[in-house]
């Protein structure tokens, strides 16, 4: 059961696709021998999650590309035979943490007291108090959870019901998520923060800066066409009369905000 969950966290889908249900109503494992092997190794290695994750990320299965051939798609559309690495939307906490990390606002400190999530309205009688918009850069795992009102931003990206054991989260794809990324004040604050950091950085040209943004947001180099596309956009976002385009914080914030709204930012592959 646990080995299957770890596999699911690493690979996107479990060897048993129904992690909460190994019974007759659940799905059969696609690779029962692999699951047995991993479970035995997990026990032999003293129940170390770290060692199991290491074993999985070193596998050829994990290191596969995300591309699917037409033939593979036709024969096994559900990827039960693991012919590619699936594209996944980031989980709620990862969306928030990625925004903090890319914007340069993430506080990597471990442990400490939980931090209250931001709230529009406080309710003292229900002990629902408001915290800072960016949670002081703390990772989402340190956000204080309340069953009465879980952090709204995370709920938007399918934070599960806090009272319901949830082996596999929903991944919905709804317009409300687009509205959050377009208009939510936290996302806007992160874009501003990124813009501020960018104009402080020593980039010789807008092209160089766009390359740095690609590295931060997508962990890859842009193509020439992409460099052209994004530098053209930042010129359009620039306020007239700004002599040095590299110093126009507002324009770079707008560009950063656009990065946050791309599907590549929100997905993992």
């Amino acid at each position, binding site marked *: 059961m646990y080995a299957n969950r770890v596999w699911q966290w690493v690979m996107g889908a479990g060897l048993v696709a129904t992690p*909460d*249900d190994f*019974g*007759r*109503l*659940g799905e*059969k494992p696609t690779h029962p021998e692999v699951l047995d092997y991993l479970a035995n190794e997990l026990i032999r290695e003293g129940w170390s999650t770290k060692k199991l994750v290491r074993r999985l990320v070193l596998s050829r299965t994990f290191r596969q590309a*995300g*591309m*699917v051939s037409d033939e593979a798609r036709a024969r096994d559309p559900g*990827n039960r035979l693991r012919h*590619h*690495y*699936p*594209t996944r*939307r980031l989980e709620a906490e990862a969306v928030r943490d990625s925004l903090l990390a890319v914007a340069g606002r993430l506080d990597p400190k471990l442990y400490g007291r939980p931090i209250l999530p931001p709230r*529009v*309205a406080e*309710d003292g*009688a*229900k002990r629902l108090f408001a915290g800072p918009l960016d949670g002081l850069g703390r990772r989402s795992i340190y956000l204080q959870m309340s*069953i*009465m*009102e879980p952090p*709204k931003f995370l709920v938007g990206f*399918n934070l599960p*019901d806090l*009272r*319901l054991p949830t082996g596999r989260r*929903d991944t*919905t*794809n*709804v*317009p*409300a*998520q*687009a*509205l*959050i990324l*377009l*208009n*939510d*004040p936290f996302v*806007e604050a992160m874009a501003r923060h990124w813009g501020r950091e960018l104009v402080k950085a020593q980039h010789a040209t807008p092209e160089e800066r766009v390359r740095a943004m690609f590295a931060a947001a997508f962990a890859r180099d842009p193509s020439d066409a*992409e460099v052209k*596309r*994004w530098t053209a*956009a930042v010129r*359009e*976002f620039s306020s007239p009369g700004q002599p040095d385009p590299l110093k126009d914080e507002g324009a770079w914030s*707008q560009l950063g*905000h*656009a990065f946050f*709204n*791309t*599907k*590549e930012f*929100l*997905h993992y*592959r």
Partner: protein
Amino acid sequence: MNRHHPFARRAFLQRSALGFGWLAFNGLFTTQARAGTHHAARAKSVIFCLMDGGPSHVDTFDYKPMLKKHEGEKIGAAAVSKRSQSSPNRVWLGSPWTFRQRGQSGLWVSDLFPNLARIADDLCVIRSMTGELPLHGQSNLLLHTGRILGQAPSFGLWVSYGLGTENRNLPGYVVLNNDWVPNGGLENFGSSFLPASHQATMMRAKGVPMDNITPKDAATIQRRKLALIAEQDSAFAPLSADARAIEGAIANYETAFRMQTEVPALADLGREPEKVRHLYGLDSKDEHQRYYATQALRARRMVEAGVRFIEITCPSFDGNNSPWDQHGLLKVNHEKNARVTEQSVAALICDLKQRGLLDQTIVLWAGEMGRTPHTPAISANGGRDHHVNGFSLFLAGGGFKGGTAFGETDEFGNAAVVNPLTVHDIHATVLHQLGIDHTRLTFRHGGRDYRLTDVHGRVVKEILA
């Protein structure tokens, strides 16, 4: 061939799971109304007016002259119930409001509700509701999720999940909230194990109606940004393993862009004629009544726009107590609650009727409980306590029989004695009118098929026209 092979059984159950869920499956992919209902639907949307806190049945729709006659007398051990805050030494309390028979039907409605009294012939009153525990949180969760412990999807979610949406630019389940979340918390409106795409959208009466609906950017900037994003995304979709999901996410941006104008336009009541605004009470001096009137009028506009399930909660004027929860000051505060809500509810029903929409819209008016017909001691500032041993609610439109009173409590209004009903029966009957068989609207979770009505519920055919 081994007919008893366990995997054959597994395959069978999986297939039947799909079979049971076809309606819901349909709902996920169709935008056409009533395309995949179990039977012909009578109605297509629901407006649920939650009378949060528990309005007193014996002061509104359940006329009990015996209470006045025996006022001040001890209720005795026989009248004590676990479904009521009761003890033998409490005394009967007569209603401070006069009851009259109204309309052609002669339905009893007290003077507390002068506007609803005028449309008595449209109301189908149930006087024999029973609950499980006389507690707000648990009773609210029962009313919303069919379970006193919650941890299950809300009524509105089930309807949205079962029927899909009629308007892709608007959510299927909208909660028109004011400034107060009812006891039981947001779980009352939660999706729980149902797909979160049906989750409730909250619209506020005060200020900006919906979160993140106001564009942060000027229109030209946003359009330029969206073009940039679309250009970048169109290259990403074919490179990813699940192009369909990515394309869906791209399409969401177009919908979101339209929602930024459509939702505020829907919420904007500025262009409603003066007559209509007055009818709902938008010109009231009482701010709480204005909030409620705003929400009621928005509810009508949402029905017109194709939203499936709209819930209106009551504004709280009393700090940290549920609006209708009058343990004391019954007279003053029930009157205040009535003033805040009943004109708008009556206006909503009239307005829907005038527009020919009442036939296809179910208006459900219900609190999570009633109130005790007895009180600890007679006093001018007295009140009534929690009571689910027999209370009233009403339905209007959607093929329910108007001018009807169904079920009876005993002569003191203390216990449902004729045709007692549960919340499950109401859920089953409302779903029936929407074309859904409540026993077949299921979702597989934790190894079994769940329904809104769990293992309960009957369609109350007697109250259907």
